[in-house]
């Protein structure tokens, strides 16, 4: 998942970027409102974290313009103003949630994950597709009730696929959204990870959770919900 963080304070921006990367996100950074709007419009973004008090273009205007331009990915407001009117203004402009400064990174991460999950159409933190269950809160995978160990990259890839279960996601998109630019952008890496995931999820090749559509990408093929 690729996050955009628009925050004018360099210290906080750097710290956030580090924390988000550690949590497995690819991160774009913008230091002012205009740069933020540009990245938010031009880059493949899954979620934007926007500070309300920004130089050049206020955060609320970025949100309004993005929504007017039809960008519908989740937007989380960071704000140091904690009067309700400020929160209501931001949310009415089109943001989906807010986190007031000073915040705990855990709180921010939880809110980001919840927004991503909801934007994928999942109401609960536990994503269930047949026998596969991904607990996004605890970052835990079980298949038929059995816990399965995943590396960080594997988890992020599976989460991305499952959040949008049923949709075809191109290899390019997966590369773009899962890894930072400094990471080796080799689509073979994705193939390797997909191969590993298949082995871990379906060692007997019985449920075929991940479908490969030649030339188009991948799809998490199991139906959402519990198999009856």
């Amino acid at each position: 998942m690729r996050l955009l963080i628009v925050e004018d304070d360099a210290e906080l921006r750097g710290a956030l970027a580090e924390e988000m990367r550690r949590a497995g996100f690819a991160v774009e950074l913008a230091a002012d409102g205009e740069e933020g709007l540009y990245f938010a419009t031009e880059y493949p973004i899954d979620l934007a974290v926007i500070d309300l008090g920004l130089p050049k273009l206020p955060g609320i205007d970025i949100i309004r313009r993005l929504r007017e331009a039809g960008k519908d990915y989740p937007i989380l407001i960071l704000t140091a103003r904690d009067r309700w009117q400020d929160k209501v203004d931001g949310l009415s402009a089109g943001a989906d949630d807010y986190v007031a400064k000073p915040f705990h990174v855990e709180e921010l991460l939880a809110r980001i994950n919840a927004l991503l999950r909801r934007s994928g159409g999942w109401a609960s933190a536990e994503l269930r597709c047949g026998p596969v269950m991904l607990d996004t809160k605890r970052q835990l995978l079980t298949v038929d009730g059995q816990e399965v160990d995943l590396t960080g990259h594997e988890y992020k890839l599976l989460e991305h696929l499952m959040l949008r279960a049923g949709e075809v996601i191109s290899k390019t998109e997966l590369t773009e959204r899962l890894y930072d630019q400094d990471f080796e952008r080799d689509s073979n890496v994705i193939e390797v990870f997909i191969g590993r995931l298949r082995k871990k999820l379906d060692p007997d090749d019985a449920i075929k959770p991940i479908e490969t559509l030649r030339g188009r990408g991948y799809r998490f093929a199991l139906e959402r919900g519990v198999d009856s």
Partner: protein
Amino acid sequence: MNSLRLSIVVSAGSLLVIFVGVAIGVLDDAFRKAAMKAEEARLDVQLISLLAAAKPSDDYTLTLPDQFPEPRYAQPLSGLYAAVFDRDGREVWKSDSTIGVVVPWVKSVPVGQMSIVTLAPQEAAELLSFSMGITWDFDDGTTRPFTFHVAESFDFFNDQVSAYRRQLFGWFIGVGIALLVSLGGLLGWLLRPLAQIEEEIGEIEQGERETLSAGYPDELAGAARNLNALVRRERSRGEVYRRTLGDLAHSLKTPLATLRTLLRHDNRDDIDRELTRMDETIRYQLAKPATRGRLIGTKPFDVPPAIDALLASFAKIYADKSVTVQTSVAPALRFRGDPSDFTELVGNVLDNAFKRCQSAVWLRVEREASGAFVIDVSDDGPGFPEPLLASQEIVRGQRLDEAPSSQGLGLAIVAEICELYGASLRLANRDGGGARVTIAVPNP
């Protein structure tokens, strides 16, 4: 023109000039007409007396005496002239005063007729001339027509008119000036309260006076009252800022001291607790100065859209908690106060309710029959603890070391706003369990 007094005097002066101008015109015209009538009457009398003085002579002509009761006939260029002409326009007689003047008489006037004309001799001023055609019956029965002429210079008439004008102008100018001066004086006296207000505002600015004095006339009493309210509000605002800053500084230093002590050990949880304490202190202490309160002339705003925006926000914030909100908001309800204060008030109460509820929140906003504006929020959570219900004592106005606990922070902020609006805040538990917060704002 910035002086009220000057503008009144100038506009009254302009009106006066127009009024006096018209009055002078009308009076002057009336006087001229009257003077002209008098002049004509005088000439008529002269003509009659001339007729009476004429005597017939044997050669069917007329003679007039050398001496007249009117001395001006005998005095050359006196301004009063007379002459008599016979049927053929031959001069029968003329007064001695005509010596040196060629009066261009209208030679003959038909018998029984009267002619009034203005004559302009070269040697003298304009004349008003009366001429009358008569038939004289001589003793032997012979009749002859004659024309009698009298003329008087306009000088006399003109003198009269200009004397009158001088007097007229003199009086009007005198009266006008007197009027303007007394108007100016009167205004100064009437506008004295304004000067007083100005002076008192100056004194307030200098810090020599607390408020405007009482006893202004009705027209100004309202303005004085509002000014006083404004001054008092400014002053209490300043007081709030000063106290807040003092409390804030004091209460942030304690956790800072704790933090410094904690730095010696790697005790993250303790450091985090202190940071939370500082954050909440800032939120709590700044809530009051951020509240605008009910300013003079605050316009009422529509409540339902504000509630809708809040509920839409809560739907997003608590998207993962399925909460049913039952609202009862009177349509077209208006609240006289600052919209962001209202949002802060309802937002904090609702936030507590959403946080504590299991699945239901009730919101009622309406104006009661008493006129009070009521906000009533309840939830199906655990409700308030008994001691709090008994005391109704929401920590307020205290310093940071006694800052409210996390759940209490919202309520403490609500209590501060209520205090600024003179509103009552009541905590209760709902019949079916859960907390209930009722706020009543008196809205005169």
